[in-house]
């Protein structure tokens, strides 16, 4: 469990006299709390409203997904990964499929790779929309939630048309995609892009220059790039702290090498920068999708792979840039049909470590904002 005092980059809780010396107030937030995004339990040590330290208690949603993998074949385990980060199920599937493909030494055909990019980036948009809505709701702005859900619906419709599922899509197969795109897929995606471009401006109009929003998020939950790296924090949180690190550029996977896009980077590493970075990321995602749709090659969507997968003995680590950060799969194969061990490096779990660092000295209300800005999904934290 997280021991708040074992951190290197955080000063220890000061031994000053607190709260009339009677006692420091210890408040238990969650696991049933509207702002902890699921079943996160946070034990807050407060001095009045000031946070002296906090401890995350996780595991309320633990389903043993990694253990389940040891009793499933590689193909059978594929749907399970959708249940980790359920708001970005497509990304999870992509990471897993690519990891196994790497283990098998095969590669998906180019058309499959393009479809993967399109769906993954759409999923990134959906995930960021959900984040924006809930984050704004936590800070007290109710309305963006409904706007983002309206627009997220369009993405889910595309998913539904493509593979029949909306949330836990299981869109990809090892070796490519199971389905060819449906008729009008490209049209739908282009339509969505045209529909969604003004919507991002709409969100920004509501929040970006709103004085209260700026006050609530500027200089809140500041974390330096150095601390981020020390804690293993990745994704938009890392980029908002000024570190230009995006796996899509750094270790290109799928077809990302072929697209032209920027990595938005923040400066201060505060909540407002994370907000701006994610908003910019949404625009970049749309750029990628447009390029991918325009350049969608013809060809098969499935590589030639054996019916029964028996990867050679060995181990592989493959990571992708999920909406929340680096999502890595470490797979150990003993040459049988079932993996010997699968270990997932979930971005939410690692990012959650930064909560304590970001909240020291802040107020209770900031803890809410910071939990929101970390964009954690408890399904992924607990697995």
């Amino acid at each position, binding site marked *: 469990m997280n021991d708040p005092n074992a951190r290197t980059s955080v000063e220890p809780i000061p031994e000053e*006299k607190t709260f*009339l*010396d*009677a006692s420091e107030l210890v408040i238990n937030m969650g696991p049933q709390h509207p702002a902890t995004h699921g079943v996160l339990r946070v034990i807050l040590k407060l001095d009045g409203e000031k946070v002296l330290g906090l401890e995350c208690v996780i595991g309320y949603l633990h389903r043993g997904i990694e253990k389940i993998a040891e009793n499933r074949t590689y193909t059978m385990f594929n749907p399970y990964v959708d249940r980790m980060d359920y708001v970005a199920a497509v990304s999870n599937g992509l990471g897993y499929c690519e990891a196994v493909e790497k283990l098998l030494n095969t590669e998906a055909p180019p058309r499959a790779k393009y479809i993967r990019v399109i769906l993954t980036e759409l999923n990134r948009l959906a995930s960021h929309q959900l984040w924006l809505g809930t984050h704004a709701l936590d800070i007290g702005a109710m309305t963006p939630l409904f706007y983002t859900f309206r627009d997220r619906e369009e993405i889910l419709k595309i998913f539904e048309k493509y593979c029949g599922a909306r949330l836990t899509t299981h869109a990809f197969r090892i070796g490519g995609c199971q389905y060819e795109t449906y008729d009008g897929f490209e049209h739908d995606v282009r339509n969505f892009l045209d529909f969604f471009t003004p919507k991002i401006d709409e969100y920004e109009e509501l929040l970006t220059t709103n004085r209260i929003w700026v006050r609530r998020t500027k200089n809140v939950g500041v974390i330096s790039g150095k601390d981020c790296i020390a804690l293993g924090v990745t994704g938009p949180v890392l980029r908002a702290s000024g570190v230009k690190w995006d796996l899509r550029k750094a270790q290109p996977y799928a077809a990302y090498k072929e697209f032209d896009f920027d990595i938005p980077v923040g400066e201060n590493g505060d909540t407002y920068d994370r907000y701006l970075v994610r908003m910019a990321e949404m625009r970049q995602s749309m750029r990628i999708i447009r390029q991918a749709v325009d350049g969608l090659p013809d060809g098969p969507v499935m590589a030639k792979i054996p019916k029964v997968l028996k990867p050679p003995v060995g181990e592989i680590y493959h990571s992708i840039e999920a909406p929340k950060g680096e999502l890595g799969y470490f797979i150990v194969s003993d040459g049988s049909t079932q993996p010997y061990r699968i270990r997932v490096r979930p971005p939410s779990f690692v990012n959650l470590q930064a909560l304590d660092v970001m909240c020291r000295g802040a107020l209770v209300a900031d803890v809410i904002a910071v939990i929101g800005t970390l964009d954690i999904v408890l399904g992924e934290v607990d697995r």
Partner: protein
Amino acid sequence: MLPITTLHFLVVAAALFVLGVIGVLTRRNVVIVLMSIELILNAVNLNLVAFSRIWGLHGQVFAIFVITDAAAEAAVGLGILIAFFRNKETVNIDEVDLLKW
């Protein structure tokens, strides 16, 4: 019933004053002692306003000054109380026996 005269108000004020004095002299909790002092001040105020019915508005003006005074007294008194509580973890007036801490 008798018409209400000034004396009626004075009797009520006297009763409140006595209650306040009892509170100050017998309670151990500093907060309640402070509240008893407020009772005493209010008894005085009632007297002043009752007399102002006879002698003009000066009594009411004085009552306002007394209320101001009570506000100042409450603020400082409670401030002292908090400082005291922080050091001794008690609000008993019996234990206020240090000249310096």
